């Protein structure tokens, strides 16, 4: 559907040690997909840049599918919830 939901875009082990650089690459990837830096900024929820590489962003299903087809993307999944044990 056209509704935007939070998706986690997992890119695996980070390819660069500088977290700012990693984060910038995430914004670039999202900008390329959404067509503008402003949209990317609004869509971005988190940039995972210390322990591994990836980001969480509000995406439509078709946008998520497009990203999932990118060679550098390991997996794109809709957000889900855990509970206390």
């Amino acid at each position, binding site marked *: 559907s056209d509704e935007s939901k939070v998706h986690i875009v997992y890119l695996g082990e980070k*390819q660069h040690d500088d977290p700012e650089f990693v984060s910038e690459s995430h914004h670039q990837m999202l900008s390329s997909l959404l067509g503008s830096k402003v949209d990317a900024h609004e869509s971005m929820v988190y940039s995972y840049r*210390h*322990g*591994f590489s990836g980001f969480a962003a509000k995406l439509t299903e078709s946008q998520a599918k497009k990203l999932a087809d990118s060679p550098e993307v390991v997996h794109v999944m809709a*957000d889900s919830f*855990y509970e206390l*044990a």
Partner: protein
Amino acid sequence: TTRTWDYLGLSVANPNNLLNDTNMGDQVIIGFIDTGVWPESESFNDNGVGPIPSHWKGGCESGEKFISTNCNRKLIGAKYFINGFLAENEGFNTTESRDYISARDFIGHGTHTASIAGGSFVPNISYKGLAGGNLRGGAPRARIAIYKACWYVDQLGAVACSSSDILKAMDESMHDGVDVLSLSLGAQIPLYPETDLRDRIATGAFHAVAKGIIVVCAGGNSGPAAQTVLNTAPWIITVAATTLDRSFPTPITLGNRKVILGQALYTGQELGFTSLVYPENAGFTNETFSGVCERLNLNPNRTMAGKVVLCFTTNTLFTAVSRAASYVKAAGGLGVIIARNPGYNLTPCRDDFPCVAIDYELGTDVLLYIRSTRSPVVKIQPSRTLVGQPVGTKVATFSSRGPNSISPAILKPDIGAPGVSILAATSPDSNSSVGGFDILAGTSMAAPVVAGVVALLKALHPNWSPAAFRSAIVTTAWRTDPFGEQIFAEGSSRKVADPFDYGGGIVNPEKAADPGLIYDMGPRDYILYLCSAGYNDSSITQLVGNVTVCSTPKTSVLDVNLPSITIPDLKDEVTLTRTVTNVGTVDSVYKVVVEPPLGIQVVVAPETLVFNSKTKNVSFTVRVSTTHKINTGFYFGNLIWTDSMHNVTIPVSVRTQILQNYYDEN
């Protein structure tokens, strides 16, 4: 924790134990991804705590009713992650929410888990007189870093943790420099593969473990059904919940003077002899009656008003108790006796309303008494705290069980630890808080016990790998209670506990400090596991960040160097390999002792392992064959390496499957 650490042999009174050898875990940082923290709790006082560890790069984030000065040398980190939750719940009103939009804990769960693992000393604490003693964490001088990723939702009356927030918390914790991560969270089965991002905790944990951070997770509360254990990746330490040698007997005296000891956390006044009723239709009316706890609301109020009500339920959850109590209370009743299978979740009833649990046998005794007399009466006295003999240790009913549903050859849970009726710090906002402390049960409470022990071990062995810690606690675990009695696993029916209930057994901190040998693993071993489990090269490559090509033919998952052997589908014979590393005396000789599972032959070669200054690691093979002619269930045994000082024990679990991939319901 007023009993936990003494039960586990970590008494402060003993000057020569792990607690003192490690300066109580000073300089070790435990991170918690949970519901936040109540920073003013006495459990987080920094009396006697040294300077903040130099490897700490984190900080304290300000937010609603939380400022950076809420942190101290004990509570050194506090951050919160809500963006994912808010993006998915646009209707969530942060202004009206009772939860704090900060690292401050509303529900109390995070405060509880943090105080269990690393809380400071708080003397003379009890829950309204029950479970009294000194409260402290397993590593009382360890430092605590809180990552709040779980939020209380008023409309649901429940807590939700968005995986995008959890992953961000894990990402930050890796940056900040935590040494141990404790997660008391779970998802629902079916489980997702470890390389599948849908198992976010496994994915985040993989990267944490690769950086040397030990990740400890709750195994889940879906027991006693088999194959329900969660957080099963082989790089995670997965924890089951057991009881302590402590209970809360609550005397129920029937009108015939028979005294039954039920279990409750009843701290109100003694309820003198009062009418006792079991709601049932004696056949004189068309009205509906029910003695089922969940249906007590169907009874006319006059049936229960002014009386103590006996009911029966098959539900072991606390909701059965709380619901029955609320129905009886609403009808004007004065107490409820619930006959059920043990649930080990004695959260107290509200307002000191007496609600006492007994089993079906004793429940039937009460029912027979009711039916045998015209005016049955009962007296209920307040609960007492019973510690030590004759209270036996059990794996809790609710504790999720193996086998591992995604990789049956990877034994899960790894280890058991006390997680029943644990008194620890909480948020004063919690409904059941008494002076900032509460009694809770769950694998949520067991996981931080292991995290606390691991923090002590980390202080002693700062260079060990995460797998080495897992090996140390599994191979040295207790298989009996402190009195040498067997540990039982509660379920239907109660049985002697096996590795699918509690992995290697109950964590034994002192022994784990000096395990003799360890079954070590590193990133290469985890890749071997991923290859053997059938994950493709590209997904493994991206997970680990290096080009990975699995060997052909693929190595067997049975060769993953775990401190356990689990063969779920033995047909004829298999041979597997393990490697042990000597972490004890340099010149050591170990001999093998095999306790084979029933009908299973286990041959180890070589039978003697010789270590010296040049030989630190030695591999051995294990040939396993079956004499069974049918598809069996799992049988259990042990493989032990002993040098007379150490008994390095791993559980061996074997299921014969003559007909493979076969589900038998006959």
